[in-house]
């Protein structure tokens, strides 16, 4: 191990001194995007993320599920400060990173990495696969020359790519291989947490299994933590330890995966699970289909945001916002019925 890497390990050791701290803690995170509909109308806001809190422990995977527009990807990007949060706080190993300057943020960028959904648009087509994986190491000045090449080669081994392919360009790889390049790039800085934003959604079924297995192997070997963002409940059930369900910018339920899948307590969680087509013809999907579409996050419904589609809605739901409360050990739900 080279000198620069030893530095990382030293820093890491210091950060790990406080072992009780979760790798990531998010408190009341908000991200609102301003929009202007016309020259004369008042500016409006998309309440993409509106008060989200959770923690992720070392070696843990938190699945973040919800439908398009629920704010799950915005949460992922806000944690990395790719979007500046509008409110709330983000703690990495106990340290508040919410208001750090770009320079102060640099060491934390090594701890937090991201893998994107689309392995076609997330890799620079003019860079070789080797250069793509080497870029974070160069940027952070952690390795150069022969040492850099060796480190990149090791990363290629690690994600199941051949060293001979280091000089190839992204278009010469298949979709699954491209996603492996993205994973190698994310691993280059030895992060503690990787935000996986729909990492297998663009892949064919047989390739999905390869990438999910790789992510799980890496977690076991490197004690990585994942925030696994996906709309695919079967994949989330497989890879996650705990699961948070989002609806219109808020978490409606968060619990360990057994509770979510066997005792879903929010009507929206229940509806999501009922809508998943199970790949087994001996099990019939429920006939109860949730009506309507997800409302706009610009003017979300008052009270409980799910009340416009909820089969159990009553008067209180329309006026009073339910708070996320613990209803059983490790299971929090935001619903007036619980």
């Amino acid at each position, binding site marked *: 191990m080279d000198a620069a890497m030893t530095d990382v390990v030293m820093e890491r050791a210091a950060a790990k001194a406080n072992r009780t701290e979760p790798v990531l803690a998010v408190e009341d995170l908000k991200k609102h995007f301003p929009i202007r509909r016309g020259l004369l109308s008042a500016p409006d806001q998309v309440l993409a993320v509106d008060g989200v809190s959770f923690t992720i422990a070392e070696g843990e995977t938190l699945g973040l599920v919800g439908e398009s527009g629920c704010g799950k990807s915005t949460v992922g990007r806000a944690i990395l400060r790719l979007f500046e949060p509008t409110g709330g706080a983000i703690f990495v190993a106990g340290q508040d990173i919410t208001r750090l300057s770009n320079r102060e943020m640099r060491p934390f960028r090594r701890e937090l990495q991201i893998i994107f959904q689309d392995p076609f648009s997330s890799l620079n087509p003019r860079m070789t696969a080797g250069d793509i994986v080497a870029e974070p190491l160069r940027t952070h000045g952690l390795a150069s020359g022969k040492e850099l090449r060796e480190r990149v080669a090791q990363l290629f081994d690690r994600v199941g790519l051949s060293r001979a392919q280091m000089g190839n360009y992204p278009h010469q790889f298949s979709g699954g291989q491209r996603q492996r390049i993205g994973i190698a790039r994310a691993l280059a800085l030895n992060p503690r947490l990787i935000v996986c934003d729909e990492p297998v959604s663009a892949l064919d079924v047989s390739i999905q299994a390869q990438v999910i*297995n790789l992510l799980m192997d890496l977690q076991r070997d490197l004690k990585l933590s994942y925030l696994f963002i996906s709309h695919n409940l079967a994949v989330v059930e497989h890879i996650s330890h705990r699961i948070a369900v989002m609806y219109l910018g808020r978490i409606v339920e968060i619990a360990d995966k057994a509770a979510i*899948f066997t005792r879903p307590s929010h009507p929206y969680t229940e509806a*999501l699970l009922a809508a998943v087509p199970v790949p*087994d*013809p*001996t099990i019939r999907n429920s006939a109860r289909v*949730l009506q309507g579409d997800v409302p706009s996050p610009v003017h979300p419904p008052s009270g409980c945001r799910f009340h416009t589609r909820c089969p159990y809605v009553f008067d209180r739901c329309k006026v009073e916002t339910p708070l996320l409360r613990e209803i059983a050990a490790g299971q929090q739900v935001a619903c007036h019925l619980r």
Partner: protein
Amino acid sequence: MQMQADQAGFADQTASAPLPERAVLEVDGLKTYFFTRSGAVKAVDDVSFALKRGETLAIVGESGCGKSVTALSLMRLVPDPPGRIVSGSIRLGDTDILALDDEGLRALRGRDISMIFQEPMTSLNPVMTIGRQLGEVLQLHETLTRSQLRAKVVELLSLVRIPDAVRRAKQYPHQLSGGMRQRVMIAIALACNPKVLIADEPTTALDVTVQAQILELIVDLQKKLGTAVILITHDLGLVAQTAQRVIVMYAGRKVEEAGIAALFAEPQHQYTRGLLASLPRLGLMRGQAADAGRLQEIPGIVPALHHLPPGCVFAPRCPRADQRCRSEMPAYEEKRPGHWAACWHPGAPNGRGDD
């Protein structure tokens, strides 16, 4: 939420029962090739099937397996050049689709056979109202007065459960949600009560709760109108929940066909078996233990269609491939009643009959 259905589902019976009536659509030996600089790409290579009135036949496979090109071939929408249907026949009742001229095709499409696509936004014209786009199909195939046309448009929008149909008919596609747009596409496709509806990944771009609404709608309308549906998808969950029969395609060829109960319980082709095994099982939801172990992988990638291996096209990725698989193409044969596959080693990889 889920309920156990009888093990011997209705699907199995339809698969093994003799055909009581003539198929609405018969495809025989269809070959659609694309002629490129690197040679002929056999996108669809010798595919045959029959579709009965009112049934749902799923065609599944991964990207590049030829399922969408099969659908485009049925509609005669394969871009030429570079694509061309080089041989085979497609018969819809007494009509030979491959023999039709442009005028014949215009009369056929939308009236006898319709198609809905994955992305409802790009399939609708952004500068025409929903009502006009729906009216266009009706005007092409039927003679209606203006007021009859208006009434029919509203009727169709109500049929696909679009609330406030009179107002919606005057709106443009961007004013509708994704689910609403797909409903409009379905209304357009079913406007003239076609015999066959081809749905190419109809819900892939939609959210899971909206997907459930659209599937429910398609199944209801199918029952009401007796339309036969060809569902093209990569999602085995959708297949299990909506189809009665299924065709599995791999690298342009049909490798297996069966009723859904038989296909999921006893897949005969090693590719189908691998595909089913690679899916996360949703064990907890089915009252089983969580499966946190490794998923079974299918090693390697789909072969390039202009460099297909000799013998079985799946042999390079197959756990049971032997010398014969690599040199001799397996015969497509009936392994069990109503269950066809092209595989030299049907059954479980460990040699037992099933797992």
